[in-house]
């Protein structure tokens, strides 16, 4: 992507889409509203993956931040009795950012398949800790997240309030994401994918660019995880399992890296297909996903926007 979206006013389509999504709960069932909110929250995690994907880095361990954000909210609600979102959400985001900063210092030296493997290992470490340390994390039972409040008030219709909370934060995340993509750091991240030597010879550091992106990515993904925790009302170790990371990568690749909206659109499509496919035929939805992914990989429709062609254009 070379044309900055920030310099045009937000496309009319995006505004209309938001308006439509905003009034949907009035017409649709609670379940569908829940699905949309869930998809948007997960979309934030996917955006985190996309920020790195633009640098040619696949994080196969982003479920780590998803789980950190979710469990931060989970601990707060379950162990400390604080269900206030205005405390939980910033806390989850900050903790995720701090962890991302620490781990980013390790990961920033890796590329390609080694980056993927190391990120996978780090997320699996969290998974094994969550599974085994029952007293700490509730083990495989997980933790229930009850007592959601917003600005101190317990909403009469928590689902609805959460819906608009997610929608508002999604808009914020999209704004931050768009600014990031149009910024020097955002472009430098793309540069990492194409030519690290040139970056070094401009006096900049590819590793530092990756670190910066990784921190922003971790923070956004952690926020997504925190939102999901409130939405579902429960957190469990599965959130950190590698297949969960795989799902985020799947949506990221499908949506492509060209637009800040793609992760959210892809996420909504994914959640709805998954929901209905699971009901209709539980043993074929993964197969469908897999076939879809293969089609995208082989034939490069808009979804795999630039990923294949750009990775193929290796610098000499």
């Amino acid at each position: 992507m070379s044309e900055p979206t920030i310099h045009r006013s937000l496309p009319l389509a995006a505004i209309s889409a938001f308006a439509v999504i905003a009034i949907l709960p009035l017409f649709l069932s609670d379940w569908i509203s829940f699905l949309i909110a869930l998809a948007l929250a997960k979309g934030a995690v996917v955006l985190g993956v996309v920020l790195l994907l633009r640098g040619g880095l696949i994080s196969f361990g982003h479920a780590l931040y998803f789980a950190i954000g979710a469990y931060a909210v989970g601990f707060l609600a379950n162990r400390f009795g604080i269900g206030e979102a205005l405390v939980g959400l910033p806390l989850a985001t900050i903790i995720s950012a701090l962890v991302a900063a620490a781990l980013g210092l390790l990961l920033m030296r890796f590329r390609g398949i080694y980056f993927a493997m190391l990120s996978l290992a780090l997320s699996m470490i969290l998974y094994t800790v969550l599974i085994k340390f029952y007293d700490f994390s509730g083990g495989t039972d997980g933790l229930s997240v009850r007592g959601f409040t917003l600005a101190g008030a317990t909403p009469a219709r928590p689902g609805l309030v959460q819906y608009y909370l997610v929608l508002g934060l999604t808009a914020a995340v999209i704004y931050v994401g768009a600014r990031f993509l149009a910024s020097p750091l955002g472009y430098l991240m793309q540069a990492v994918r194409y030519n690290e030597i040139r970056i070094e010879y401009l006096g900049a550091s590819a590793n530092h660019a990756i670190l910066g992106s990784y921190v922003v990515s971790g923070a956004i993904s952690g926020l997504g995880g925190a939102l999901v925790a409130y939405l579902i009302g429960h957190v469990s170790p599965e959130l950190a399992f590698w297949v969960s990371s795989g799902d985020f990568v799947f949506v990221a690749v499908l949506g492509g890296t060209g637009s800040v909206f793609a992760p959210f659109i892809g996420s909504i499509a994914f959640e709805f297909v998954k929901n209905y496919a699971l009901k209709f035929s539980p043993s074929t939805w993964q197969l469908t996903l897999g076939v879809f992914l293969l089609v995208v990989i082989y034939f490069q429709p808009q979804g795999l926007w630039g990923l294949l062609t750009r990775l193929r254009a290796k610098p000499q």
Partner: protein
Amino acid sequence: MNILPIILIDGITFASWLFLVSAGITFIFGVLRILNVAHGSLYAIGAYLGATFILKFAGQEQHGWITLLLLLLAAIVVGLTLGPLIERLFLRRVYGEDEVIGLLTTFALFLILEDAVRLIWGIEPYLVEGPYRLFGRVRMAGIAFAGYPFLLTIVAILAALLLWFVIHHTSFGREVTCVINDREMAGALGINVPRIDLMAFALGTFLAALGGAFTAPMMSVEPGMGASVIVLAFAVVGIGGLGSIGGAALGCIIVGIARASAVQLFPEIELFVIYALMVAVLLWRPQGLFGAIELRKI
């Protein structure tokens, strides 16, 4: 009670179990430069097919050595059919692309195969304990161990020897080594690289299926077994170095001993140590213990 023999034996048998799958993955990476996420599914299919063969052909009692032959047969069938099929149809198109594309492709295959297994074999677990009972219990160092895992160790050692022999003493092995070192050059030297690719992937598939088949008597064969084993294999291969079979063997032993120690001393960190080890090794040597570094020229 002296736990050292327990740790050693437990560790070695765990390592053997893991070796079959991880040797396949690392070998395939060396030749095709693709990290095969679907390897876990091939392992699972080996287990399911092995279980099916035993249930169909070994009768109610699942007696006798024939069960072992059936397991081996299952692995061979998977290696000879699924291996070439997957390589030809799905992987061939993505050679020469970035390694990350290969990863995504095999991840897609993993998703497909996981459901394929569910569709073919259902979601109920399969239990085939016949071969397991065949080996009873063995006394070592004053402790009674189950006998079957030792068979697994023997199978792993035989597989390692077979691999070593094939690579160093057959023309196929020489050609494979050429391809591993330099694909383009190998082609220029007249080696039929596509054929080597096919055979290498089939061999790797066979190894995974062998691991699965011989594991079937030890645990219940159920959906999701592939997903859990693949991450363990990744850990081992990351430690040992992508492309190095010797590295995979060493990685297996390290992981096996570490895990066995944890089980005896501090059970909560049983799984944690494996990934912690992987992180530690990757931080110290990003390419793994025996992996190769790649430099760029300008």
